């Protein structure tokens, strides 16, 4: 019985998340906010990224490329 409740509750939470995610995807970002949205999500907005000289490490593939270029 406890296992059934657990599955039902967890299933409910997962369904809730998928539902809100799908609903959110359906509503497009307003045109006037697109530039601000892209700026906030871009790699350049992250202060943890390296500077221009080191080319940074934004994303896994970029990090791998960066590591290949590092010469000790």
């Amino acid at each position: 019985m406890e296992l059934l409740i657990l599955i039902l509750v967890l299933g409910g939470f997962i369904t809730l998340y998928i539902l809100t995610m799908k609903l959110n995807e359906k509503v497009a970002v307003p045109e006037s906010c697109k530039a601000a949205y892209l700026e906030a999500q871009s790699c350049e907005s992250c202060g943890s990224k390296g500077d221009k000289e080191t080319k940074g490490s934004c994303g896994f593939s970029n990090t791998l490329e960066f590591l290949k270029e590092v010469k000790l």
Partner: protein
Amino acid sequence: MMNLLAILISSMLVNNIVLMQFLGLCSFFGVSTKMKSVVGMGLAVIVVIFLSALITFPLYNLVLVPLEIAYIDTIAFILVIASLVQLTELVIKRFSQSLYKALGVYLPLIATNCAVLGVALTNIATPQSYPEALMFALGSGLGYALIIITFTAIRLRLDTANTPKALKGLPIAFVTASLMAMAFMGLAGII
């Protein structure tokens, strides 16, 4: 009333979520490069932490504990917070473009912010009432915003300073954060 005020000040300054509990450090170092972004991020964190506490505290006490499945609190809270962020973004996107531009664009970054989960879990781990839990969440959010704005101001000044090459960028940011943490330790006795 004084108790609630004490919780607010304590969670904001004395037990600051970033400098004392080391939560939300990724966004703390990642976003603190532009003042405009930081203000939006700070506001978004305040809203999301408060809303998540509003939901997770009763969810734990009224659903998970009576059903004897309190051990799934972490995974349940992660899913609830992620859903809440999606829902908040959806509502703001749909009804207020100016608000969306100011703080909505940072909401996807907050979905994985451990400060939000940390506050929700601390709330259920400490025996306290619902208003106290909400005040703790509000104080934590305000503390996060205060620290990230102060830290960004210092970091922007350091960009123009003559910093040794080896310390430029993140190394000097870590040194600054540690000095700020030590300075905030001085507030330990006020509550």
